[in-house]
């Protein structure tokens, strides 16, 4: 019978050493809300669990050069209860709030949400829209990567053997900026997103959109950054006409599958609707009307 070992290192270096030594048989244990289900269902059988929750860097939330760095193993509830985080990034907060029930959020982490690499992960489109950077540490040192480049397919990431995700950096917020996240689910809670749309906008003093980012989830093999949609808003006042093109570009970017949670056609249609509605909320926030 297979035995599963458990270690709880206190430093990043120690964690990296354990992962490197285990030659692919180890998994990082943060919140465990995906890992334990996969182990129970027989889909994963790691020989070693590396519990990273005792490492200070992955549990911290702190300002950094005007931006905000939060550890990969900060629980969702800790994040949404953090006043500055919630105030600065209401859209990303909305997204994190949708990762399962209160109970699940009490353990689940944004780091785990990204590393599990479900195309439907709720925090990822909003992280992408926010322009978040992921810090990866490994035997060769550390590197920063745009979140949209992290997942490569369902369950697949760019992490090499021995590497782990340590933290995220959210950039400094420009004035007249706002973000929003919407997702479609059949019930009001407790469902995996059928479509997720995260929008982040920055306006200038005249109310013209100068920067925009759209992240879409559950409509491709990984969450997408959709620059073509953003382009439809930049230089405009984000009026109805601009939003129409924005929504069309969002739908056009989708390459979804039919699965038990939604059909291709439904997802493509809803992506446009949600992208538009999220942009409308982000716009209100950017204008200062919350």
């Amino acid at each position, binding site marked *: 019978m297979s035995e599963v070992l458990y270690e709880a290192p206190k430093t990043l270096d120690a964690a990296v050493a354990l992962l490197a030594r285990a030659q692919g048989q180890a998994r990082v244990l943060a919140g465990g809300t995906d890992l334990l289900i996969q182990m129970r269902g027989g889909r994963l059988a790691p020989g070693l669990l590396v519990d990273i929750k005792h490492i200070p860097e992955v549990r911290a939330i702190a300002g950094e050069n005007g931006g905000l760095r939060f550890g990969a193993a900060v629980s969702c509830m800790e994040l949404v209860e953090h006043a500055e985080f919630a105030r600065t990034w209401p859209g990303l907060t909305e997204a994190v709030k949708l990762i399962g029930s209160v109970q699940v959020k009490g353990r689940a982490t944004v780091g785990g949400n990204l590393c599990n690499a479900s195309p439907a992960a709720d925090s990822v489109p909003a992280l992408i829209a926010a322009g978040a950077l992921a810090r990866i540490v490994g035997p060769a040192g550390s590197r920063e990567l745009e979140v949209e480049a992290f997942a490569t397919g369902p369950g697949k990431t760019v992490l090499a053997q021995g590497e782990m995700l340590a933290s995220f950096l959210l950039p400094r917020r420009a004035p007249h900026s706002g973000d929003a996240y919407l997702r*479609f689910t059949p019930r009001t809670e407790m469902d*995996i997103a059928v479509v997720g749309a995260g929008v982040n906008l920055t306006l200038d003093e005249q109310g013209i959109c100068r920067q925009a980012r759209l992240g879409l989830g559950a409509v491709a093999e990984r969450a997408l950054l959709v620059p073509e949609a953003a382009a439809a808003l930049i230089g405009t006042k984000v009026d109805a006409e601009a939003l129409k093109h924005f929504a069309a570009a969002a739908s056009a970017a989708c390459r979804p599958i039919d699965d038990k949670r939604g059909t291709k056609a439904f997802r493509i249609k809803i992506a446009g609707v949600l992208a538009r509605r999220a942009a409308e909320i982000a716009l209100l926030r950017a204008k200062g009307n919350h």
Partner: protein
Amino acid sequence: MDAKVIKHEEISLKLVGTRPVRPDGVPKVTGLARYGADFALPGMLWGSILRSPHAHARIRAIDTSKAQALPGVKAVLTCADFPEQKFEFIGPERVAVNFWHMTRNVMAREKVLYEGHAVAAVAAVSRRVADEALRLIEVDYEPLPHVIDVDAAMRPDAPLLFEDMITRGVEPVPSKPSNISKRIEFNLGDLAAGFAAADEIVEMNFKTAPVHQGYIEPHACLARYDSDGQLEIWAASQGHFVVRAFTARLLNMNIGDVLVHPAEIGGGFGGKTVIYVEPVAAALSRKTGHPVKIMMSREDVFKSTGPTSGASMTVKLGVKKDGRIVAADGVFKFQAGAFPGSPVMNATMCGFAPYNIPNVRSVGYDVVSNRPKSAAYRAPGSPISAFAVESVMDAAATRIGMDPLQFRLLNAARAGTQTAWGPKHAHDGYVETLQALLSHPAYTAPLAKNQGRGVASGFWFNNGGESCATVHVNEDGSVVVATGSMDIGGSRASMAIMAAETLGIAYESVRSTVADTGSIGYTHVTGGSRVTFATGIAVVEACNKVIVELCARAAMIWDVAKDAVLWKDGFARCVDEGKGKLELSLKAIAAKRAVTGGPIVAEAAVNAGGAAPGFASELCEVEVDPETGSVKILRFIVAQDVGRAIHPSYVEGQLQGGVVQGIGWALNEEYIYDAAGHLQNAGFLDYRIPVASDLPMIETILVEVPNPNHPFGAKGAGEVNIVPAMAAVANAINNAIGRRLTELPMSPPKVLAALDAGPPS
């Protein structure tokens, strides 16, 4: 929020209709109540069941040697450990049982007939060893083509589950086998003449997906088979006498050698009136000499236990311009799952039952297909046919320009109305539920854009049947009331209320318990909305016997004739004027029991007839998001005739719970299969039952038209509330968007597709 209770008869009752705390409440809020999975015994082993990965396959061989050899494994079972059973349908047609089917459902023999079908079982020292052992059992399967959908299963070229299944109920007898186990038909009047006389005819087709009862507690039991041949089982079940009978039969044991303890039960809704794990745990215990505990995983519950049927239906109504329904025709095809026994007969009987229609034909097909054998689910069959009938009723009312409630009122069944299946309705109560909605201010309140309102009605038989109750007067005058009815929703409180009311003593003096199968007489399942009715009758009868005895003891004490003593308000009173004002409390008589004849005890055993059916009418308001097809329930009102609410809080709870199950059924719940017949959503993540944030408060109106056959007028209240719910939602959606959805669930993609299909026809 106080429930609205509409009474139709005032009688003076002290306790009936009040809301005391239930006697089993404190253990349930402190975590001390013991459910099926909460028991343990020294030396206990864990049992685990191997289940088929194929939707349909022949079993060529099973090699258990590697599993047997694993350290920690104490026994491995296959069908060889269960005796063969005779092929025979036993009992009334509507609820017939066939042990040849049942033993095969518990443990497959020649074939596996659904993904999740049990093929072997293991008992081991831990859960992990047991699960590891399952992986070592080698089963040689010959996969066969499978069929799941009911229409597909009825096609002449469909893969056959049973090579020798010849449809019953068809003349002439078919020469070829099929998957149609049975055809039934009810007729009233002259259907052709009826439709010929109609001014308007509405005919529609409907399709529903199978749904699960969704109880939060997976099936679990602990079994101890001792070397003297005595078997004890602690089981989560709606009927411990049924567990006893079926387990004994499947293991070829005497019923008297099996003792079943009623654990608390974490939901059943009909799905726990059958057995799955009990005979397996018992057989493992017999083989190992140790107690064996089995707990199903949630995945196993969805893959292997009986949901209710999916169905394919056609309903046609003929109506006159003045609103009278002159003809009704329904064809209902139900999936039975792997073995015959869908609730299609109920569906054919209940669908048109709320209405007075002179010409009716109602046809049902019971069809086997490669999915778990269907089990009862709250008013089994009736919600499904009601979805079809009540949708057509709504369409017909619109066609002739009549208000949907007035349309139903005009055609409403009353006492004396002829049913399509034979008897006349014996009870009123339906009309009153319609009137309750008609007079509700919500019925005429304005609606905003994208909002709609729909109504629907429903019928359910409610059962009587066998129940036993014992009443013991304790030495200090307190009373124990024991019944054989598992308490699934607060019935112990109702039993205590009825006993205390009858005896004229305080509620707090009565202790209400559920007795095991060795301590009380045969009592039928807690289901069919029968407990407050039938077991209540038994309780009251036993109390009345106790009262006779109490009076006799008082007579002895006073040295008067027995008939000089009557019982009033908890006291024996002497009516012999010459003796002065004599009275004795129950407590005082109890204190003297030893010198007056010994313990004061009575038992009552009833086979209760005279159950009154349930009628419910419901109103639903929805808001539809036209860009996504999302449906939000804004308001839901259920008016149900409950006869008399013994404990109104628990009656309201039944109404609210049934309605919410119906809402889930209407909007989101369904079994999703892939092309290979594998279940894709075997968990609560993707089998979507309503969560708290999906719902508004459900408003209940308890209409009381008392049942003269029950001492306090109670009618069964647990089930009929689910019957109209899906149609109420469908009719509300239709009112909101001008499109009628005829397939369940009415999930957002379907609503959106209906909206995008173009303007309404």
